[in-house]
């Protein structure tokens, strides 16, 4: 496939690996956080960590929307489907995530709730058009990449007068989460100091541009390289980060220039700004309550806001006991540090979101390194 195959070329990968080996100073460590779960999976799937020297380490960040959604919000979604009798449309990633008491959307569906997996908000709109007598709620999750399609669906529903469609909005923002990791000492006092730079998200940045990361360089003196998702993109970005560190430079660089510009997609940004506004605070699994880190639907569009249309009950939501998802999402623990990994918790019987999502760190370790990880756990 064009723009994919070229960026998986074996010979170029060797070339970049050699360049990284030469550039990396053996006298120091390089700890780079890949914010995005898509990068975590690219690193594992293509064995990028085996192509870089041992002193170049990847710290996995919280950029997995399914993983960071706390049990409470998932319990609310299940309530919408079960108590309010709506047709709940969700991206497939969410269906198997365990909420309180390990109840998932899939279990609710098995118990009779009308929960439908969709690929796109376009499908959710079709379902609403086809079922005018039913309430149809789209479970909106995701970072800045996935927010514009939710905004477009609301705009379309308004334009067409689709009155039975609404969105349960859980859209979150990348820059405030990165700031939170660097700023909030109770997360882990050593973490901020230990990070030598960030691999910036690919497609979040396609929408928001590279400008919103400039504060990281300016205020926190952390180098950032916006990186594409293909293995060569990741490797070239690692090389760019190593060079910044070696040369004492602190900049936002853009490796993924074929898609990302400084300004991003203005049309998508304008649409998102028209439909959504900042939530004063949002609860993230792992990060806790993060100010200005999520979006809510503006009052002008309250008719399309599931939180306004349906009275959601107060509930005592609980995360799965002994699941290390929260610490893994902060980058302070690895899947091998969780005693459930590969034992009670596998993709078939997930105890935590990080094992369910195709972007979760535990799913990456399980899919690509489970034997090594289980051996390491046995040795400790």
């Amino acid at each position, binding site marked *: *496939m*064009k*723009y*994919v195959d*070229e*960026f998986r070329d074996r010979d*170029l990968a060797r*070339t*970049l690996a*050699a*360049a990284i080996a*030469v*550039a990396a*100073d053996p*006298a120091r460590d390089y700890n780079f956080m890949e914010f*995005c*779960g*898509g990068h975590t999976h690219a690193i594992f799937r293509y064995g990028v960590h085996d192509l870089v020297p041992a002193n170049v380490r990847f710290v996995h960040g919280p*950029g*997995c*929307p399914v993983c960071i959604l706390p049990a409470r919000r998932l319990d609310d979604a299940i309530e919408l489907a079960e108590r309010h009798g709506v047709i709940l449309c969700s*991206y497939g*990633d969410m269906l198997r995530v365990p909420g309180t008491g390990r109840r998932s959307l899939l279990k609710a569906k098995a118990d009779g709730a009308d929960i439908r997996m969709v*690929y*796109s*908000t*376009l*499908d959710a709109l079709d379902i609403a058009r086809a079922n005018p007598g039913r309430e149809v709620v789209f479970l909106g999750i*995701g970072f800045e*990449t*996935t927010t*514009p*399609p939710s905004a*477009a669906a609301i*705009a379309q529903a308004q334009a067409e007068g689709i009155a039975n469609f609404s969105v349960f909005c859980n859209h979150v923002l990348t820059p405030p989460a990165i700031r939170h990791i660097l700023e909030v000492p109770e997360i882990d006092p050593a973490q901020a100091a230990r990070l030598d730079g960030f691999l910036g*998200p*690919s*497609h*979040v940045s*396609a*929408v928001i541009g590279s400008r919103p990361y400039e504060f990281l360089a300016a205020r926190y003196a952390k180098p950032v390289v916006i990186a594409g*998702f293909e293995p*060569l*993109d990741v490797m*070239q970005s690692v*090389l760019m980060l190593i060079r910044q560190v*070696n*040369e004492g430079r602190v900049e936002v660089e853009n*490796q*993924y*220039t*074929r*898609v*990302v510009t400084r300004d991003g*997609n203005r*049309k*998508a940004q304008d*649409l998102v700004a028209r439909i959504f506004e900042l939530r004063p605070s949002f609860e993230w699994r792992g990060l806790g309550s993060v100010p200005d880190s999520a979006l809510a639907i503006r009052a002008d569009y309250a008719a399309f806001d599931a939180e306004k249309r349906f009275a959601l009950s107060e509930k005592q939501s609980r995360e799965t006991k002994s699941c290390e998802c929260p610490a893994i999402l902060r980058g302070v623990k690895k899947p091998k540090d969780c005693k459930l990994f590969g034992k009670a918790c596998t993709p078939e019987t997930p105890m935590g979101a990080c094992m369910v999502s*195709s*972007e979760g760190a535990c799913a990456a370790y399980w899919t690509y390194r489970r034997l090594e990880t289980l051996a390491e756990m046995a040795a400790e």
Partner: protein
Amino acid sequence: MCLAIPALVTELHDGAMASVSVGGIAKQISVALLDAVAVGDYVLLHVGYALHRVSEEEARRTLAMMAEAGLLQAEVAEMAQTTGLAGGAS
């Protein structure tokens, strides 16, 4: 969730919709989030929507830089070896 794939626009339709080819497979997508999409453009397809155009010129430039980075580093390594310096930090 944030994964997106390059798709070739093959036909434009009413209502900001378009036909695209994704590695040979035909699909209907929305181009409502992009201005002035044309047949022959490569766009980044995410959950049914075109999110951004893919720049052919920049893709070529990036690949050239990757090849070049290797050449430069190979020279540095060779230099370090022939002059007896410990290779490493540039």
